[in-house]
């Protein structure tokens, strides 16, 4: 890929007229050392929802269409696109097909992560037909990428508890539903992961994608993976590990040992932080500078997508917020953890939007 200057980037984007929403200056960082660095786009949680016939919920459609259109404007082109899961709302063929159609306009290779909303109707059967295996790994420019299906749960819950597949899907779809069940990667996949990682040098940067956070944040809303510690243990021997996850529909980041965690926003709707639920306690990592409260009168507020550059095996994530400034969370070599590049220090934060 040839070296891109800021000017050529502007020219590329200028033709399409969405400049203001694209993270312009950030592209230069990624290509400061050409050859070593690369970028990818990260889109997640579109929750395409079937109403009836050929009708789908307009709001969620618009979110995905916008993210796809903007990701297509990125110049230089990202090496690939990650889709973080929850493409559908209730896992139906109609929803997955419609979502796949919209994603079909993306320029470049798309890798997929399984979300619980894609899975619990037919246990991933149709999704796998469309998008391939539910867990896999690949190597790209010296980085080892791993994709996990982290939204599995106990067999009894999955196979025995519910009278129908539709009900099982509905029970798992309600975020705050006490009948739900905690997510997990499970023995089989952890055994696969151990084997997959055995052939990777400890100095190789490892980037893992899961749908649920591979850390425990708030069980009541399934911001949670039951065997998170066991997965973390498998990742512990590597020098540089980054975990990306969707599901939480908000900006979160954290550092646990050698592992940097960064979440994705949803294209569909934002979620409140678990702390805002007065009857619950959560373990939301202290490192996270919260997103501003969303404006209910602007339906795309606090939704968006991400643009990530990977340099020297560490990631910087640019959150493309529609009604707010772009936020960048980048691994900080001095502190050894991901930090918001503008708003980490309390004194530097912009006051939360106060008019909603």
């Amino acid at each position, binding site marked *: 890929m040839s070296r891109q200057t800021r000017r050529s980037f502007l020219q590329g984007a200028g033709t399409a007229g969405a400049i203001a929403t694209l993270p312009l200056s950030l592209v230069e960082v990624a290509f400061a050392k050409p050859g070593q660095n690369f970028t990818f786009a990260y889109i997640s949680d579109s929750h395409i929802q079937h109403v009836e016939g050929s009708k789908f*919920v307009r709001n969620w459609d618009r979110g995905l269409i916008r993210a796809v259109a903007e990701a297509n404007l990125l110049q230089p082109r990202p090496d690939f696109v990650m889709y973080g899961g929850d493409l559908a709302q209730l896992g139906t063929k109609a929803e997955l097909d419609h979502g796949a159609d919209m994603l079909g306009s993306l320029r470049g290779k798309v890798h997929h992560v399984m979300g619980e909303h894609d899975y619990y109707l037919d246990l991933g059967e149709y999704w796998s037909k469309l998008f391939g295996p539910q867990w896999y790994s690949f190597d790209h420019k010296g980085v080892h990428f791993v994709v996990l299906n982290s939204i599995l749960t106990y067999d009894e819950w999955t196979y025995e508890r519910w009278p129908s597949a539709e009900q099982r899907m509905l029970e798992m779809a309600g975020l705050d539903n006490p009948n739900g069940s905690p997510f997990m990667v499970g023995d089989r996949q952890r055994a696969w992961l151990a084997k997959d990682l055995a052939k990777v040098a400890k100095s190789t940067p490892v980037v893992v994608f899961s749908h649920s956070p591979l850390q425990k944040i708030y069980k009541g809303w399934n911001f949670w993976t039951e065997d998170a510690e066991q997965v973390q243990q498998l990742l512990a021997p590597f020098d540089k590990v980054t975990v990306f996850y969707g599901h939480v529909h908000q900006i979160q980041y954290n550092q646990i040992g050698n592992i940097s965690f960064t979440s994705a926003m949803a294209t569909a709707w934002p979620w409140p932080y678990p702390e805002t639920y007065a009857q619950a306690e959560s373990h939301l990592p202290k490192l996270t500078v919260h997103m501003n409260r969303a404006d209910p009168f602007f339906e795309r507020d606090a939704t968006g997508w991400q643009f990530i550059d990977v340099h020297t095996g560490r990631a910087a994530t640019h959150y493309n917020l529609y009604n707010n400034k772009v936020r960048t969370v980048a691994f900080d070599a001095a502190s050894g953890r991901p930090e918001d590049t503008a708003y980490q220090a309390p004194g530097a934060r912009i006051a939360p939007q106060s008019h909603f």
Partner: protein
Amino acid sequence: MRAITLVLTLAVTAIASPGLHADEFTPEDLARWQAQFEGVVAEGRALWGDGKLGRNGVACGQCHPNAANTHPETYPKFQKQLGRVASLWEMINWCLRNPLEGEPLAADDPKMVALLAYATWERRGVKLEPGKH
């Protein structure tokens, strides 16, 4: 003067007569009222997750798990987008009409009362701060 005294006496007798004590609740009364309230909260919780409340299958709970981010303790408050002080039920109708593409409910519609009861119950214990942003 005499007539007035008579009327007063009658009134006092009426208030004091057995069976008309307005302020002595029995445990049965309290239990019944609590059950009524809890029933309405449960109805509200069910409506909160009900894709049929609006017209596009979307439910309040998709964006407000456990009714989070509805801030009942801050209402009534000035709502910039409406340009005036609004009550909680008006914001419920805003979300009902927009993300749910549905019809607004009357303030005293039993469904609205149930939605309000559930949102407020999930926020119990939080200090009242009317007008706060």
